[in-house]
């Protein structure tokens, strides 16, 4: 083989990536040695998982507490039709032909290089942010609703975390979820693929990661706004100079709302599998 770290078969399989100057053999080996945690196998997690698995990330861990429902099929492209009522983690692993391996305290036992947030509620987003800050892991955050999507990377180098931008959670009655508002599958496809892209850029040490920037996608006009965000805030409760939050808190209480869409059981991470 050309490389002691990639087999001949892997070299064929990833050749179209390794031809790209910004990736190359070095980037491919970095991806193979990486470990990524994907939270939520919904509209965002499905395409992100597909592209990360296809890119040859060494270990991908899924967390989702939900089961497959018929209303998911407009966008959650990893789940097969016969998998209604099966757990989303199992369903995704089926599709990606992955092994399974149940874990409990993910961050205690594992070092993730990147966490990808495909969750669908405010409480989980604060939980993941704090978990990533406390464990010094970058968080690739995507979200979508109706015909709009947003993308950014938190807690990367001197960029802000979610709490730097949003120290106080939004009033619960201003939050619309996909169950209430709907979401176009193609929009989650764009944002999920962009989350996979940012993850690959972080893992291959590429420049211009979407940290300190926010991408705002308006599908109704097919326009993207790329805006500059504040840096890490010294006054931030979790990543600032004098953090008040030094361990995980009760996020449902903090947000005044349930992690209603059931992407994650905030107390016990039950459904977890690795590929």
């Amino acid at each position: 083989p050309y490389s002691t770290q990639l087999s001949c078969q892997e070299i064929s399989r990833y050749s179209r990536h390794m031809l790209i100057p910004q990736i190359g053999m070095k980037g491919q080996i970095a991806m193979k040695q990486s470990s990524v945690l994907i939270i939520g196998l919904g509209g965002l997690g499905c395409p992100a998982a597909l592209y990360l698995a296809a890119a040859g990330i060494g270990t991908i861990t899924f967390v989702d507490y939900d089961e497959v429902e018929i209303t998911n099929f407009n966008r959650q492209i990893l789940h097969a039709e016969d998998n209604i009522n099966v757990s989303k983690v199992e369903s995704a692993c089926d599709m990606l032909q992955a092994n399974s391996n149940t874990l409990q305290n993910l961050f205690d036992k594992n070092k993730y290089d990147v966490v990808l947030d495909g969750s669908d509620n405010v409480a989980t987003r604060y939980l993941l942010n704090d978990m990533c800050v406390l464990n010094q892991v970058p968080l690739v955050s995507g979200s979508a609703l109706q015909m709009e999507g947003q993308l950014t990377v938190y807690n990367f180098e001197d960029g802000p975390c979610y709490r730097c931008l949003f120290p106080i959670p939004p009033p619960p009655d201003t939050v619309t979820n996909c169950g209430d508002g709907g979401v176009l599958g193609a929009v989650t496809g764009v944002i999920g693929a962009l989350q996979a892209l940012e993850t690959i850029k972080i893992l291959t040490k590429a420049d211009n990661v979407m940290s300190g920037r926010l991408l705002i996608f308006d599908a109704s006009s097919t326009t993207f706004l790329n805006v500059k965000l504040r840096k890490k805030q010294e006054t931030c409760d979790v990543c600032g100079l004098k953090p008040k939050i030094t361990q995980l808190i009760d996020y449902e209480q903090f947000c005044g709302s349930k992690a209603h869409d059931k992407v994650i059981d905030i107390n016990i991470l039950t459904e977890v599998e690795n590929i």
Partner: protein
Amino acid sequence: MAKLPITLQFNGGAELLFDNKKLHNVELISEHREWTIGKLLIWIKENLLKERPELFLQDESVRPGILVLVNDVDWELMDTVNYKIQPSDRIVFISTLHGG
């Protein structure tokens, strides 16, 4: 009484409070004083916001979960409510999304 033409944009669901209209070209009348974003927020409340102002404003600023952008830059880098509005500024109010 110079006129101060600016563009206001609402995204991420914030447009629902403004007749579901994302783009608003408005002209502020600048008498003697300068226009800050703080003053603009009051103007929006009085002139554009039809109902339930608490879903947009809170304590003389925007409510938590809304990000304000001045010409594609986070207002936190522009002195927030104290930023002095310039002609042709584009000010975006974006409600963050949480769905997936």
